[in-house]
């Protein structure tokens, strides 16, 4: 009886220590954060309600966000996130885009206001004040964040396969 009690006490102590360690171990959360971030598509479109994939990953790791918020990642990403975080997968909150897109500036119409540069999360736009701007197609993730700020509506989305 005493032995059983001692064993139970030992297990309780060990369990608490392990649980505390898991909570307090910064590397562990760091690697989890890195893995969650890597599982996101890096479109940086903010459709998840967070200003980019990294912030969404941080919220996920802290348990402050649902796993079904990233439309570019689609159902596949929901599955991976649920697995990584040990929670149940849910259907995607918004429908996923049908195919990858890229932004294209109609250069003849650009007035060089630089608003799109400020909006682009991955520095994929080149240009200078009052000069023509252009999108670096290799770097553009198709996040659409540059479309709304353009005052002359000269940025269009085209399917990536046509670029």
């Amino acid at each position, binding site marked *: 009886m005493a032995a059983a009690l001692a064993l139970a006490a030992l297990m309780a102590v060990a369990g608490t220590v392990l649980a505390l360690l898991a909570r307090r171990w910064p590397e562990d959360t760091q690697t989890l954060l890195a893995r969650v*971030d*890597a599982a996101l*598509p*890096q*479109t*940086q479109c903010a459709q998840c309600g967070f200003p*980019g*994939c*990294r912030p969404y990953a941080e919220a996920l790791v802290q348990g402050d966000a649902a796993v079904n918020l990233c439309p570019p990642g689609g159902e596949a990403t929901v599955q991976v996130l649920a697995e990584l975080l040990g929670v149940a997968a849910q259907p995607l909150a918004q429908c996923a885009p049908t195919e990858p897109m890229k932004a294209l500036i109609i250069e003849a119409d650009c007035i060089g206001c630089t608003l799109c540069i400020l909006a682009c*999360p*991955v*520095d*994929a736009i080149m240009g200078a004040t009052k000069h023509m701007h252009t999108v670096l197609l*290799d*770097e553009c*993730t198709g996040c659409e964040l540059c479309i709304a700020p353009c005052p002359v509506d000269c940025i269009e989305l085209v399917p990536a396969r046509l670029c």
Partner: protein
Amino acid sequence: MLVTTRQPTQLHIALQQYATRALPQVQAHQHIASGQCLADHPNGVPVYAPRAGRVRSVSAQCITIDVDTDSHEAPALVEPHDHFLERVRQGAMVGLGGAAFPAHHKWRGTPHTLVINAMECEAPIHCDRALLSIRPDSPLRGGEILAEALGIARCVIAAKADFAPIFQSMLPRVPSWELFTPAPHRGIGAERTLLRALDGATLHGPASEQGYIVANLGTLDALARWWDHGFALTHRLVSVGNEQAYWAALGTPLPDLLPDTQDAQNTENAAAHSRTLRVGGLLSGTLSTEHHRGLQAQDNSLSWDDASTAPLPAEPCIRCARCAPVCPEGLLPQQLHWYQHQSEALVALGIDACTTCGACDSVCPSHIPLAAQFMRAKKTLRTQRSIDAMAERAQARFAVRNARQTRRAEQAVERRAQHRQGDKRQDAIAAALAKRRQRKAS
């Protein structure tokens, strides 16, 4: 072997090249001479007019020319460059084996061995057979030019058994060259497999990085014609079906090269219209129902995909392991087949080394289209890798941008603080001044 030339009436010249797209230098309605430069790109090769005519339309993808009835193939209208590789580029030299990779990129470095690849082993491609029947000397001349320009000491003609006698009879012209006839084997024409058979060399990465240049007969023929006669690459041999070949201008509409389509147009035979065309070999080729495009440099063979070439229906793998010993790359095709949808397992099994030669197909008692599956898997893997690489770059660029924004915000706060400090100094001066005035007044 019947090799014919065709006078085209219209040409649809594609501007897409291996890794770039040439930029047009002509405008619609302009009259152009045969051999005139139509488009160019510094990362690619120039595009010349195969015939004289009038430009009908120009788009980013294609230049369409209405050909003058009496026009001929003519030397390119350019001054040949002195530098070897630049002159190779200028002649629009690309690999005619099927990839159309720019030769001036492939022929860089200091190679020690030139391998002339005369192994043509994928049915129904027979451009090399056609070439050897019309100008057998030309590829050898191309090899001489290349070997001399790059100072290559060792030249090997790797010829399949049918071609060996032809080269044997020409060897006295090039006494120091070797003639190598490897044992016939599926997939022996793949660069990597061929070099292993020749030297036991195991390649990781491009052959050129290990001192080998493997050149196709058609490419060397093109080089000889450019060097000795000034013809840039505006034509190629394309084999049609099993027995016919054309010396055709790039841009010739494919229907003009397919006698059956002409019949179909004449007889309004709808069934023939909707047939599937195979461009390339049985294994490496692509199928399309879109016949109305122009001939491109990589199109080596045209054939109909019909019942006679259709494979028997596939049955499940019985794990007989007959496919493993025949794989020239030492892979386990049955395992690759088993894991065909799992990229990690495929990579671990070495799918990157698979040349999709089809040796495994040929022995499989279940008629499983293994090579076709592996080709698809490799393509999926390539797409996945490029998506991953892009995501990684986006992640890094996003982090850099955020760091910059944070730094700017901090700098702004600092500046404002400094500005306020400046205000404080002004206040101090004002206070001191007021005090001084008071004292003066009292």
